[in-house]
């Protein structure tokens, strides 16, 4: 499965498209890590716990989108967009969407 965030896939031509595919996931870190992060907030710097959390969940959301594209018979997803939002305190929601296509 090829993923791009541009209109096309360089060097290949799109022959067929299947419309929108998307994947999403909501994750939360446990209270211990939340507390550690709030302490880290005092001094600033990278919040490793959250970086990891968001990376993992974005990966899962992407996997879900790819799963949808595969179901439709696509072999690539073009113009992929990532979106993050906070639904509730401490939980973040990752959303990935794109257009499923078949390339040759």
């Amino acid at each position, binding site marked *: 499965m090829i993923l791009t965030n541009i209109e096309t896939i360089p060097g290949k031509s*799109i*022959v*067929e*498209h*299947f*419309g929108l595919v*998307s*994947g*999403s*996931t909501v994750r939360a870190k446990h*209270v211990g890590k939340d507390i550690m992060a709030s302490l880290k907030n005092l001094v600033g710097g990278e919040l490793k716990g959250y970086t990891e959390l968001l990376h993992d969940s974005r990966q899962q959301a992407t996997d*879900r989108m790819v*799963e*949808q594209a595969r*179901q*439709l*018979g696509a072999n690539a997803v073009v113009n992929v967009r990532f979106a993050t939002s906070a639904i*509730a*305190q401490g939980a973040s929601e990752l959303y990935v969407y794109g257009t499923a*296509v078949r390339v040759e």
Partner: protein
Amino acid sequence: MKYTAKALKGNVNVSRTSPIKEFFILLSGVLGIVILVYVALGFAVDFVVSRLPLEIEQNLGSLYSGIYVNTEKTGAGIRLQKILDELVEKNPLINSRQQEEPEYKVHLVPHSQANAIALPGGNIVVFSALIKEVDSENALAFVLAHELGHFANKDHLRGLGRRLVLLSISTALLGADSSVSNLIMNSLVNVEMKFSRRQETMADIWALDLLNRRYGHVSGASEFFENMSKKEKRGRILYYFAIHPYPEDRINALEDRIQKKGYLEKEKIPLDKVFEDLPVKPAGSGK
């Protein structure tokens, strides 16, 4: 580029797991942790309470009883205070711990609930509906002695401390989400009640001993409970959740103690006339 219309089957973005199962797993996990922390902190509170200086307790008491201070002393209030004073004179702890006893004050508050409360600083609040449930001075003295028993065992501070611990745990752990902290508070109140009921029984026994010292006999000790159990048609199951033990259980516990110690039963002193026709509703409530 051609478009192929195809519908997706299933939904990869939604997990097919049972939310109820997840709910119970998480709930039991949270309760386990909270109970563990609560018990540990509860022991810490007990440790502090037994070493708390009297001045601090008095200060706490003045914070608490400020609401009741302005209730004017009526004839019934003065009479009640006299019964209490006579009891306190016989308090076995007065002599064992010099100058460690606060000045005990009783406040008679118009209220429709038959109950009495021990507040920090030696303040006892008696709701007027309770007096309607007793027929003799001895029974009234037993209720006051019961509250003195709470002071002797430091239950009033312990209850306060434990509730404080409860509150801090739930806010520390859950912060913003109030529905969850409500749930945990509610479950913990049940655990708390198990402690309370043991405390109530201990205070009953303590009061019985004091009553015997004051009047030379223990008549009227179980009068209040007998009247209550006659009146209340609540089943045993509901009492499982209540703060106080089932009245019949308390009567039985008292009778056991009476037999063991060989306490006597004599003529009861009838209730003073000033206790008749007390207002049950707060004066300002209108209706």
